């Protein structure tokens, strides 16, 4: 997504960069609750996970039909998850509610989610597509408050306003630039 945006020659103006800075600052405030360092093993795993996701995204950029490629990748991932599952079999514990959550998470939140996301992507600029994804942790935190009974904090409120406001600034200005450009084109023709 990074290189895609650069490749397409999309540039951000000062207002959009300000919006990004506000949104990212809000996200950092939301995600890191204190100055306490996360556990070492957790950090290494998180880094590995991030790198794997990055490699995946870069290898996947520019494919003709991302939704069906994603479908193929899910199918290919099944054998790997079976191997890991067998490895952890001694600790396996099946819980009906947990199985239900896993099915909803896989089929609807992931499967259907990817199809919807890839159907929206052609209509978004690369910069907008990257920016709107900053909203996911805010939405997740909101869901945690509404559904999982987590407490609402001032930091959550401020961070959410910053993230969503920043995203709105970037997306709205990008969009209005488009409109101005098309109006100029119309007046020329």
């Amino acid at each position, binding site marked *: 997504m990074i*290189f895609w*945006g650069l490749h397409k020659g999309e*540039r*951000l103006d000062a207002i959009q960069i300000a919006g*990004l800075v506000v949104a*990212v600052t809000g*996200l950092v405030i939301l*995600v*890191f609750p204190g100055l306490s360092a996360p556990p070492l093993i*957790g950090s290494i795993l*998180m880094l*590995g*996970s991030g790198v*794997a*996701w*990055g*490699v*995946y995204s870069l*290898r*996947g950029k520019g494919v*003709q039909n991302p*939704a*069906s*490629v994603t*479908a*193929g*990748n*899910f199918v*290919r*991932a099944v054998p*790997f998850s079976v191997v890991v*599952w067998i*490895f952890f079999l001694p600790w*396996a*514990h099946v819980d009906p*509610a*947990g199985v239900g*959550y*896993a099915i909803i*998470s*896989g*089929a*609807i939140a*992931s*499967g*259907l989610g*990817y*199809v*919807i996301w890839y*159907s929206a992507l052609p*209509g978004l600029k*690369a910069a907008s597509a990257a920016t709107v*994804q900053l909203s*996911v*942790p805010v*939405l*997740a935190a909101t*869901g945690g408050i509404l*559904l*999982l009974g987590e407490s609402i904090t001032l930091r959550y409120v401020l961070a959410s306003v910053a993230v969503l406001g920043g995203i709105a600034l970037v997306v709205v200005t990008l969009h209005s630039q488009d409109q101005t450009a098309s109006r100029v084109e119309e007046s020329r023709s």
Partner: protein
Amino acid sequence: MTASRIFILTLLAMLAFASNSLLCRAALKQTGIDAATFTFIRIFSGALALWLLMNVRRRITIDRTATPLAAGTKTRVGFPSPSSSSKRRGDPFSPSETLGGGSLAGKSWATGSLLSRFLRTRLPFHLHTSISRPVLALCFCLAQFRQR
């Protein structure tokens, strides 16, 4: 695609990704299921759902190309329908992709997914809430700065 349609689709996708994080936390914190079983069922049902969706979409695309007169009634499906030629190139089960980059991407996806599942059991909530996508977005922001 109209602007409001793009907005709604984007919002739905973001809500789906966010609910993923919630479902994982609810399952691993509030039910007894272990991370490996959860991951296996999740990937399996995701694969099944996507496979079914792609089959439905393929059928709709074929229907439309076969009966151009009926196009008006069949174009209003939820996803963009690429031409049949690009569709063939992007076929997930084509031999070239199975042998080539696709499988590597599949592996890194699986690794990433497993690692993040594992993390969700090890780290406090705020640290593992969909870290990977925002990190990517962050890289994009940095790239924008470096360019100036």
